[in-house]
């Protein structure tokens, strides 16, 4: 406004034209200079502002990286229980490639029973595992020998751990940060050849490229080529939106120049390699070549070869358009175009190019590290971590979480589940029946595998952790253990009465337990009450011991609960989640030593510095002898009791112990059982708590046995502890007998509680073999019943 008014004021004076002209032009000049100054100041301000943004982003923490969750590293040593097939499955998941001679990291060659491989090396908590070549010879289902490539024996080695997930908030960028020196030489060359030939010459913007782009675009009549340098692309990704306006373009150019002023070409290139968007995996955005390499090839970036590098670089132009999983032909074409371009520019020779073009895309079927691959187990890990770390540390700091997860066992668990549902198909309401399973190693307390749902990829309600359901007969071992802790009063051959009774509570309510078959079984041996899961004798025994005492045993076993001390608790009216049941049975499986269940071993920072450890801890809660006897009754549940049908699938030489559980009206089907090194707890039931057609034996046990058949646990170690003696007793009376007498069997007793040895083979008076021996028909019937019971 003021300029306008000056102009108007000038007009009426009209002294001389020349003078006027000179005056005017100097005035214009002054105006121009003023304007220029203002513009300069403004630009300067903008530049300072942009520079601040650039510097802040570049010198600070450039990216937030979600924590990475790793499986256990596979240990290799002579004697290790591992089949060749399982080994190859693991190597495949780790992205190892078969080669004629495995002489590079990530290569394997298989020759009969021997696998030669070159491991990649890895930074573990207690130190680095070197990358090295080795040969593994298999024999049967175990490693017969382990040696260096030159044949020298190797004591122990481990593979790098499989990445099984990350801790992402919703809508999260994910990346694996890489340094320029970890990148295959070909990658920057290819990238520059395709995206920015002048990279090392320009200062952020390349007039030459822009001119070429304009030429190409105008002659072809469509936007085919962008003139953006890598720096501009990086700036765009880092700071700007995707809109196509001149202002944005100008800002981009300014910032690109600023970036180039402050940082070296190498820094810019490294940032680009980590930033570039290369795909979308559900809600997770795949950024950077490091992660893209894992996502598409399951291989570390450093191992990529020409055809793989070309594919990834080709994808930069349009990650979803050239998505090799969705549009393989398009991607292949693009890849070969990139390879041709490399020949054109002399990066590779024609021969190399031809070989590379012959290769298939080589991508894995699906992103093996997707958030949803093992949602059940990763959920358990997250919950444990959240007790000790802040949320932002978990989602931003790139922590490395090392877990006990065993992908081979997980695979077997999933397969067993699928098989079980196939077997149960056609049963009433089976489609509504969900399931959950927790697999652990009782000797270490580590959780090895976990199913949270009948569809293993489902990331919702995690039944293994959150389905808190009545445990039914799974409580019974706690009752018998409570009894067997008092050897003066109870032994496995102690007589108990399986007979109806009723208990009146103070409020006048009457509790009258019943057996599953609604029958009474009269006098039975104590162990039979557990093995056959008789409700009457068990409840009576529990009343004898006292409900509070039994509930205390449950706590001591490791299952915290707030159950009221009602008699109905003795038959499992109290509810627990599968993982809590696992903790409880872990103590029984581990000789009375309680080990808190762990899923995490240790945590490292993004740089590989040790941060935290979840160490093994143990506490003796029960006498080893009492546990041994309880295990014996549970072992017999598998050979002669309610768990018998497991041996339809398991070899008879495999010693396992376990317990079935069924809650009222068939709402919950449970099984918990173990060998020496593997414990699995299975629950099946409906989310709405409705009735199923499954008992513990017909549902959960089936899944358990299908799993154990594949997992092949070591037989339960039955070496008696020092306070347990084996005694010969008459199988019908439980009285002391002598070896060699008819009907004599060996039973374990706490030392001092064994019956007096029988002096001869005289049978007790009341013993009438004809009356007592069940008829063969009966045995078949009871075998059938075991499936229903």
């Amino acid at each position, binding site marked *: 406004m003021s300029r306008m008014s000056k102009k108007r004021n000038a007009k009426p004076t009209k002294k001389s034209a020349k003078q006027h002209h000179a005056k005017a032009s100097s005035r214009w000049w002054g105006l121009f200079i003023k304007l220029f100054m203002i513009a300069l100041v403004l630009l300067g301000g903008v530049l300072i502002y942009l520079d601040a943004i650039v510097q802040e982003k570049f010198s600070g923490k450039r990216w937030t990286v979600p924590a990475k969750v790793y499986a256990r590293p596979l240990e290799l040593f002579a004697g290790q229980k591992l089949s060749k097939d399982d080994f190859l499955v693991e190597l495949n998941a780790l992205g190892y490639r078969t080669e004629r001679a495995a002489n590079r990291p990530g290569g394997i060659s298989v020759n009969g029973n021997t696998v030669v491989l070159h491991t990649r090396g890895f930074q573990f908590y207690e130190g680095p595992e070197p990358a090295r070549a080795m040969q593994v010879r298999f024999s049967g289902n175990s490693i017969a020998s382990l040696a260096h490539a030159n044949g020298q024996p190797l004591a122990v080695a481990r593979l790098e751990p499989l990445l099984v997930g990350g801790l992402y908030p919703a809508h999260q960028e994910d990346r694996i940060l890489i340094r320029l020196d970890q990148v295959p030489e070909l990658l920057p060359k290819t990238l520059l050849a395709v995206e920015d030939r002048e990279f090392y010459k320009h200062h952020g913007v390349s007039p030459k490229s822009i001119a070429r782009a304009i030429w190409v675009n105008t002659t072809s009549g469509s936007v085919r080529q962008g003139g953006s340098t890598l720096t501009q692309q990086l700036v765009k990704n880092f700071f700007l939106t995707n809109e196509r306006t001149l202002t944005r373009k100008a800002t981009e150019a300014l910032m690109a120049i600023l970036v180039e002023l402050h940082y070296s070409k190498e820094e810019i290139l490294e940032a680009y390699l980590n930033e570039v968007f290369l795909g979308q995996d559900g809600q997770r955005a795949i950024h950077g070549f490091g992660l893209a390499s894992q996502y598409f090839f399951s291989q570390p970036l450093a191992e990529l070869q020409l055809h793989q590098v070309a594919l990834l670089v080709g994808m930069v132009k349009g990650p979803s358009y050239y998505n090799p999983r969705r549009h393989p032909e398009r991607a292949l074409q693009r890849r070969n175009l990139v390879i041709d371009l490399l020949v054109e520019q002399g990066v590779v020779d024609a021969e190399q190019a031809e070989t590379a073009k012959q290769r298939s895309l080589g991508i894995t079927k699906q992103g093996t590290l997707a958030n949803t691959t093992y949602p059940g187990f990763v959920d358990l890990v997250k919950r444990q971590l959240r007790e000790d770390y802040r949320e932002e540390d978990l989602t931003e700091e790139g922590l490395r979480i090392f877990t006990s997860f065993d992908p081979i066992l997980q695979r077997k668990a999933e397969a067993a589940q699928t098989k079980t549902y196939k077997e149960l198909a056609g049963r009433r309401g089976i489609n509504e029946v969900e399931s959950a399973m927790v697999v652990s190693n009782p000797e270490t307390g580590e959780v090895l595998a976990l199913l949270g749902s009948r569809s293993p990829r489902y990331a919702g309600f995690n039944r293994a952790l959150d389905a808190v359901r009545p445990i039914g007969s799974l409580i019974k071992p706690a009752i018998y253990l409570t009894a067997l802790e008092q050897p003066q009063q109870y032994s496995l051959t102690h007589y108990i009465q399986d007979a109806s009774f009723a208990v009146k509570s103070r409020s006048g309510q009457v509790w009258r337990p019943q057996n599953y078959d609604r029958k009474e079984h009269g006098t039975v041996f104590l162990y039979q009450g557990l093995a056959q899961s008789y409700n009457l004798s068990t409840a009576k025994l529990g009343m004898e011991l006292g409900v509070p005492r039994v509930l205390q045993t449950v706590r001591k076993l*490791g299952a915290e609960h707030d159950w009221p001390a009602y008699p109905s608790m003795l038959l499992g009216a109290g509810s627990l989640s599968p*993982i809590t049941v696992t903790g409880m049975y872990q103590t029984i499986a581990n000789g009375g030593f309680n080990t808190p269940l762990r899923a995490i071993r240790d945590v490292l920072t993004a740089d590989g510095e040790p941060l935290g*450890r979840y160490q093994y*801890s143990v*506490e003796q809660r029960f006498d080893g002898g009492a546990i041994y006897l309880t295990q014996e009754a549970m072992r017999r549940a598998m050979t002669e009791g309610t768990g018998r049908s497991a041996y339809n699938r398991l070899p008879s030489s495999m010693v396992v112990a376990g317990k079935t559980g069924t809650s009222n009206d068939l709402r919950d089907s449970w099984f918990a059982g173990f060998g020496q090194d593997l414990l699995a707890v299975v629950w099946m039931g409906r989310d709405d708590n409705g009735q199923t057609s499954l008992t513990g034996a017909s549902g959960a046990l089936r899944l358990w046995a299908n799993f154990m058949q594949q997992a092949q646990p070591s037989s339960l170690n039955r070496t008696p502890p020092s306070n347990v003696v084996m005694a010969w007793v008459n199988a019908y009376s439980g009285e002391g007998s002598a070896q060699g007498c008819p009907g004599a069997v060996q039973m374990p007793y706490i030392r001092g509680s064994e*019956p*007096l040895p029988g002096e001869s083979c005289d049978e007790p008076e009341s013993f009438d073999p004809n009356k007592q021996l069940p008829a063969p028909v009966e045995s078949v019937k009871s075998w059938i019943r075991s499936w229903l019971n």
Partner: protein
Amino acid sequence: MKKQATVLVVLAVLLTGCATGTQQRSIPIVERGGPLTPGVMRDSQARQAQFPQSERIEAEIVTQNEVETVRTYAVPHAPIGGITVSSPENAVPTYEDATNPISNTGADMSRTPIGGQTSLAADEQLAGPVLALLTTAKQQQGGGDLNSAASSLERAQRIAPREPQVFYRLAEVRLEQGDAAQAEQLAQQGLRYSDGRPTLQAGLWELIAKARAQQGNHTGAQEAQRRARVHL
């Protein structure tokens, strides 16, 4: 952003709050009675005497009349071993020991283990992988990196879960880390698997004595010392 963060934190709190099943790290009950030692029961007469008496619980139990008749002495309906019993030969339960060549404490393992608590002379008689890891752990322990040493030892324990020397070393490291209670438990765990290896048993009792002394349990420590001497 702040809002989102709050939502996340609230969610996390809620989730952990719901996760009753995963609070395994809080040990509910700590029962620390005397050492669990064998052979408390000598009186088998007493046991015989109480065979027919299940009436003790009469006060709480309303017995039904028709059941009364069953309450007299009766042998169990089914024999031990259920339907399979016919001759002693096949009635004998067969116990198969796990034959893991590494973790087995049998003949292939050292019979003359750790001498006292000072040296680990018997290490060289251990099988390959465990020996290698114990050696690594020893170096780490020597360099003062107790966390790494413990980590290596736990790795050894996963490979040989019943090798008492591993428990011995782990207990030693825990003691050095200042966790005397865990050291004692780990040594107890080692004792569980060291039958027939008196020197190692003595070493483990020595460790228990130390651990108990550190916890202020001096009578317990003396008792452990006594046992250590017995085994030597």
